[in-house]
């Protein structure tokens, strides 16, 4: 890398103030918010998807006699209570993937250049984008929790507050994963495959639908896969935090995964060494 190239990348970033960074963050947030408001179908589908599980799957499930006590629960819970954290994580998983889907769309339509020619450091743009998509996912989760509560899913009142940090972390982790994946995809059409090969396996091979001890009884192999799935730890982090408890292992896994995925996404979108350049799909 020549000195000249080094200068042209680094020079503009030197003079930015915190205020300017905030303007940039606000701009990205605002765009995400507008997208959220305008794409009502996206919001509705984000809400309907977990509700279908809650209303139909959980209602028809035979655990009507109560799910055995596992931490963090203090007593027997109905299946709809058990499945709620998994559905919250599902909302965040879909949102993370859809947000990165929009990156693919942006790239195809050329909008992304607007973002990528910004003089702000690439990592900042990426993190801003992650934060805004996480914020949107939290709004979706809040809407879901309102309906779930009306449906009779009983969550301690303070649980709605204690779950927030967990939602931020899990949102970041899944958003970063989506972004990392989006850097590998050149076309919108390919993304459907990712939905199939990433979202569904991640969701089903986790503790979202069944407690892991139950999975272990039926298949040790699937159990091991569930154990290796970072999504499982995202769900458990949310599950514990809903009851004001902290699961340290889940916190550690989610934190580490979030950091790895974010660094991966930053590297992937780095114009000088990223995958975009290597694959020839980067901004011209």
């Amino acid at each position: 890398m020549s000195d000249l190239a080094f200068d042209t990348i680094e020079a503009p970033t030197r003079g930015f103030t915190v205020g300017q960074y905030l303007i940039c963050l606000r701009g990205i947030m605002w765009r995400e918010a507008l997208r959220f408001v305008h794409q009502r179908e996206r919001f509705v589908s984000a809400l309907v998807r977990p509700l279908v599980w809650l209303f139909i799957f959980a209602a028809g499930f035979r655990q009507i006699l109560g799910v055995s006590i596992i931490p963090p629960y203090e007593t027997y819970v109905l299946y709809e209570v058990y499945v709620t954290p998994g559905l919250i994580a599902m909302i965040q998983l879909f949102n993370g993937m859809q947000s990165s889907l929009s990156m693919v769309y942006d790239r195809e339509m050329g909008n992304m250049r607007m973002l990528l020619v910004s003089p702000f450091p690439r990592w900042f743009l990426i993190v801003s984008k992650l934060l805004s998509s996480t914020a949107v996912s939290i709004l979706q989760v809040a809407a879901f929790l309102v309906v779930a509560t009306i449906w009779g899913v009983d969550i301690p009142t303070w649980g709605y507050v204690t779950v927030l940090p967990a939602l931020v972390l899990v949102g970041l982790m899944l958003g970063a994963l989506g972004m990392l994946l989006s850097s590998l995809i050149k076309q919108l059409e390919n993304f459907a495959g990712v939905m199939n090969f990433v979202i569904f396996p991640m969701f089903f091979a986790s503790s979202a639908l069944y407690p892991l001890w139950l999975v272990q009884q039926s298949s040790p192999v699937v159990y091991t896969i569930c154990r290796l799935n970072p999504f499982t730890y995202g769900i458990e982090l949310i599950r514990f935090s809903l009851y004001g408890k902290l699961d340290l292992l889940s916190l550690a896994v989610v934190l580490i995964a979030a950091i790895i995925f974010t660094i991966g996404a930053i590297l992937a979108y780095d114009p000088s060494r990223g995958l975009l350049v290597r694959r020839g799909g980067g901004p011209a």
Partner: protein
Amino acid sequence: MKTTLFRTASLSAGMVLAALTVAPPAHALTAYVSNERDNTISVVDLDAMKTIKTVDVGQRPRGIAVTADGKDVLVCASDDDTVQIVDRKSLQVVGELPSGPDPETFALGEHGTRLFVSNENDQMVTVIDVPTRTVVTTIATGVEPEGMGVSPDGKTIVNTSETTNMAHFIDYATHKVVAAVLVDPRPRIAMFKHDGSEVWVSSEVGGTVSVIDPVRHVVKYKIHFEVQGLRSNVIQPVGIRFTQDDKTAFVALGPANRVAVVDAANGKVEKYLLVGQRVWQMAFTPEDKYLLTTNGLSNDISVIDVADLKVIKSIQVGRQPWGVAVASP
């Protein structure tokens, strides 16, 4: 047999060890749970929400109560044909009451001094004076007496009969059966309201609770239960408890794993609370703060917050918990 013996031995050894290591707190609200299968009583600290001790008692302990003076716990050792007295301080069996053969359950009447024990196989009720530990009298009842209810004034005993599906009203003064009221199959428990205005009888197989007028001896109405997604045959009402103000009744629904919350004025079911497996008997803590349920198949008791109508905790006890009694500090 050997394995059973060994298991019992190792179990008791474990219990002794547990008893030695955990000292009971000085002023805790305590629950006593009879474990039918383990031949023990679990002592549960309701402040810590934990089982703190296990006491060996006679065979097949079922009905359990704390005496009026709060000093002792009485427990039916059904297969030993006796009611044992367990001292609350030392947690030792200190004596026995002459209960007659195969006592399953009992009711404490007349301010906790009279014990009315049902003797299933001998078709009678044995009345015991607790302070003197003597039999006052025996009363012949219907076939296979099961549940026992004593009116608040101590004048009427209601005894349910498993085979004839009847609730027998017995006048205590004359020892005569004054009425037999037909209820649904396999009546289990008879429970008077605190004001004595109604007797509720649960029918395990019939799946209903019959509300009986104790003066006219007629069924006023029947309460039916329905839990969405559950077949009606797993809804088997057993234990019944009224709050002190008689406004709310709780009915344990056996293998439905639910406790029904019933408006005691009109019999309307307000809510179903999910507890452990095969919920059997229940007991209130003082001032109706908590309601405890024994869950026979999941070997635990569930704690219901009565004001919130929420199950807040399930606590592991011995195998097949049957009855529960609560003692103030």
